[in-house]
C-alpha cells in the first residue's frame, strides 16, 4: 500500500487511512441506527421481546438506581447545606438539591448506572450470541436479528430511562430531605416549600428529554458493540469495555449539548 508513496508523505498517508477508517466506522454506526429505526416502524412487532427488555434494562436496574439516587441526594444535601450556611441561605437547600438532581444529576447518573449494569450486559449477551453463531442461526431462519435483538432494546431504552430518572430524582430529593431536615434540622416546610417556588415544569422536561436521549444512546451503543464483536471471549470482553466507555463519554458530551440548548 505504502510502496509507491514517498517516505516524507507516509505519515499523511497513515493519517488519511485512519481518517477513512473512522468515517467508515461512523457511517456503519449511523446506518445501524437508521436500520433499527426503520424496523421499529415496520411489522411484525416483537411485543414479548420488548417487555422482556424493559425487565432486563429497567426492572433489574431498580436497586442500583435506588441506592445511588438516595446517596447522591444525601451527599448533595450535606454539601449544599454547608455551602449555603456560609451565606445564611439554608432555606434554599430544597430547590438547590431538587434543581441539581432534576436537571442534571438524575438523568446523567441514572444513565451512567444503567450503562454499567444493563448496557454492558446487553453488549456481552449479543456479543456471545454473535460468537456462538446464534445470530447467524436467526439469519438463516430468514429472521432479521436486528428486529429481535436491537429494536426491542432501543424501544425499551426509550421507556425505561425516563422512568429510572424519575425514580432517581424522587429518592435523591428524599435523600436530601433526610440529611437537610432530619439530620441538620432544616424545617420540612422550608425544604419542600421553596422547592415548589423554584422548580417548574421546564426543569422537569429538561431532565426528561435528556433521559430519553440517553436511553437511545446507551442501547444504540450497547447493541452496536455487541453486534460487531471481535473473536472469542477476548472480543466480547473488549466490546463490553468499549461499549461502557463510549456510552459514558457520549452521555457526558450529549448532556453538555442538551444543557446548552434546552431552557
Amino acid at each position, binding site marked *: 500500500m505504502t510502496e509507491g508513496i514517498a517516505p516524507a508523505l507516509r505519515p499523511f498517508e497513515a493519517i488519511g487511512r485512519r481518517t477513512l477508517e473512522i468515517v467508515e466506522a461512523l457511517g456503519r454506526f449511523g446506518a445501524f441506527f437508521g436500520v433499527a429505526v426503520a424496523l421499529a416502524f415496520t411489522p411484525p412487532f416483537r411485543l414479548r421481546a420488548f417487555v422482556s427488555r424493559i425487565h432486563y434494562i429497567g426492572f433489574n436496574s431498580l436497586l442500583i438506581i435506588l441506592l445511588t439516587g438516595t446517596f447522591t441526594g444525601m451527599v448533595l444535601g450535606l454539601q449544599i447545606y454547608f455551602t449555603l450556611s456560609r451565606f445564611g441561605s439554608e432555606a434554599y437547600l430544597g430547590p438547590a438539591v431538587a434543581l441539581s438532581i432534576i436537571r442534571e444529576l438524575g438523568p446523567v447518573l441514572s444513565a451512567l448506572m444503567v450503562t454499567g449494569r444493563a448496557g454492558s450486559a446487553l453488549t456481552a449477551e449479543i456479543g456471545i450470541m454473535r460468537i456462538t453463531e446464534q445470530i*447467524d*442461526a436467526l439469519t438463516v431462519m430468514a429472521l432479521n436479528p436486528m428486529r429481535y435483538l436491537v429494536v426491542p432494546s432501543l424501544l425499551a431504552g426509550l421507556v425505561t430511562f425516563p422512568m429510572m430518572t424519575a425514580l432517581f430524582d424522587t429518592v435523591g430529593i428524599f435523600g436530601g430531605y433526610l440529611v437537610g431536615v432530619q439530620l441538620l434540622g432544616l424545617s420540612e416546610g422550608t425544604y419542600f416549600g421553596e422547592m415548589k417556588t423554584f422548580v417548574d415544569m421546564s426543569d422537569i422536561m429538561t431532565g426528561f428529554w435528556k433521559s430519553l436521549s440517553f436511553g437511545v444512546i446507551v442501547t444504540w451503543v450497547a447493541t452496536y458493540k455487541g453486534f460487531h464483536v471481535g473473536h472469542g471471549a477476548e472480543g466480547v470482553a473488549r466490546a463490553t469495555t468499549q461499549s461502557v466507555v463510549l456510552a459514558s463519554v457520549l452521555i457526558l458530551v450529549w448532556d453538555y449539548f442538551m444543557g446548552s440548548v434546552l431552557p
Partner: protein
Amino acid sequence: MIRVEGLTKSFGGNRVLRGVDLEVPKGSITIIIGRSGGGKSVLLKHLIGLLRPDSGRIFIDDVDITRLTGRTLEPVRSRYGVVFQSGALFDSLTCYDNVAFPLREKSRLSAKEIGVRVDAALEQVELTGVGPKYPAEISGGMRKRVAIARALVSEPEIVFFDEPTTGLDPILVNTIHRLIQTLHRKFHFTAVMVSHEIPEIFEIADRVAMLYEGRIVETGPPHAIQSSTNPVVQKFITGEPDEKPSF
C-alpha cells in the same frame, strides 16, 4: 440441485477460496472434506448466504443467490435447515422452545400443531423428555441432536451441517452420522456436510468433495475418493502428517 462456479473469497490478503467449483445433486448427502482452516466452513457460509463471494456464483435450482440480498434471499433461506458447528442453540430458550422457534416465527401452525411437530422432532433425535431443559443443562452430543431437530422441524429441502460431530467421542460421532442418515432416508432432503471425520463419513456420504488450497481437487462417490490416486487426497484420508509440521 446446488451448483457453485468459480467461487473466490479473500479476507484481507488471505485468499481462502481460489475458485471453487462444486455440484451437489438433489437428494444426495454430499460431504466436503479438507484440512482444518482450509475454508470448508467459509464455503458453507457462502452456500447459506452468510458471506458474499469476491467472485463466482452459487445456484440453488438455477437461482443465483450471490445476486440476492436481504429480503430477496429470505425465500431461498426458508428452504434451508442449518446445523451449526457449535449447535447455535438459543441459550435463553429451553430445548423445546429452541425446536419450536422456527415454526412459531415462520409458520402459521397453531400452538397444538407446533407441539406435535416439536415432540416428533425431539423423538426422532431420541431426546424425548429433554424439552424443558436449557441447552446449558445437557451434554454436547445432546445439544447437537437438539440442533438437528431444530434444523429439520420445518421440513427443509436442503440441510447444511457444519462439522456436526466436532468435539464428540467416536461413539457419539457414529450415533450422529446414523441419525443424519436415518433422517435423510425419511425426509429425502439434500444434505451438504462439512466434516473431517475420516473414515466415518464414507459410511453415510453419497458424494465426497475434497477442498484443498481453496479449490475442490477431487469429487466423487466415497469408494472413488478412497481409491483416488491424487496424493493430496490419499495423504488426507490416510492421515499422513506433513514432513514439516504446520503448527
